């Protein structure tokens, strides 16, 4: 094994250890303290009671997944928004736009839309939505982006899911990409 490999592995282990230490020292005491408060006990009792009823159980499940979604959204939207804002202020966004506009014109999109497509394909639709909010687009362009992204998005995660059922990753990505690009080009001509 290459020495650098060993190094990176032990680095990873160290990072995990540090994370664990931080959790044990800072987050766990706060959590335990919070669990002894009257508010937590009340909420816990309410949830336990609600679990027994079918209707309230569904509401609790929906609320929990709603909160999880909000947390997940924050984790993606805020970093992406800050990176795009910095790129914009450093006028790198213009550079990217000029670089990609010759290719993107076949899809009827401005050059910046390349960022939207890349973010949507690598991370997920929410990251793409964040980028869309920063770019001036007509409704035709938004529809083209929507169709293209709906065919191919979050490729890493969804290809991994598809692979679990036995499909080959190459076929999945190929199908989705070709559908996205063809539909983009055709929509640009038709709309």
């Amino acid at each position, binding site marked *: 094994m290459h020495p650098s490999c060993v190094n990176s592995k032990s680095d990873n282990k160290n990072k995990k250890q540090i994370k664990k230490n931080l959790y044990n020292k800072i987050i766990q005491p706060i959590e335990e303290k919070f669990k002894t408060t009257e508010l937590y006990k009340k909420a816990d009792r309410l949830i336990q009671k609600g679990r027994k009823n*079918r209707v309230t*159980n*569904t*509401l609790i*499940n*929906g*609320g929990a*997944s*709603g909160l999880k*979604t*909000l947390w997940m*959204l*924050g984790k993606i*939207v*805020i970093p992406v*928004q*800050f990176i795009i*804002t*910095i790129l914009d*202020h*450093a006028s790198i966004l213009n550079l990217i736009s000029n670089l990609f506009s010759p290719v993107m014109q076949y899809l009827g999109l401005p050059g910046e839309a390349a960022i939207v497509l890349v973010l949507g394909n690598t991370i997920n*639709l*929410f990251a793409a*939505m*964040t980028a*869309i*909010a*920063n770019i001036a687009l007509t*409704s035709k362009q*938004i*529809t083209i*982006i*929507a*169709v293209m*992204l*709906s*065919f191919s998005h979050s490729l890493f995660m*969804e290809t991994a*899911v*598809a692979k*679990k*059922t*036995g*499909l080959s990753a190459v076929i*999945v990505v190929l*199908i*989705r990409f070709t*559908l996205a690009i063809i*539909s983009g080009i055709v*929509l640009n001509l038709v709309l």
Partner: protein
Amino acid sequence: MDINLIIKEGFFNSIDTIKTIAIVVIPLMFAMEILKELKILDIISNIFKPVMKFLGLSKESSFPLLVGLTLGLAYGAGVIIKSAKDGGLSKRDLYLLMIFLVTCHSVIEDTLIFVSIGANGWLLLGIRIPLAVILTIIVSKQMKIQTNQNSNSRLN
């Protein structure tokens, strides 16, 4: 570069984006929970059973297909793997179902998210679902031809 401006802009734009997405997604979460709890998909999948033949699929695949279409790819794949293990789905069904679902899944959520920023939702659905159907039919026809050729060569 004005750092204050960047922080302000980044923060407020993030909140705006989170708001537009959350308004669509969180009510949908509740709707999905109700869908799961009342087992509405079981009822609808019975209606869709005859249509499955058109796609070259068996009747049993209507439930996993609907789950994938409404609740998402991960959920659909889970149901598909489970019913393949139970013996409800053949290998051919599994392959075709995944080809369909990989191009067309969680249609409600995706469509509503894009509609919220001004895309044409009907056009989006009207392109996505028919293209996925056509693709599945082509692949299923191709698979039939291949299996026929295999059996013919065996006979010869």
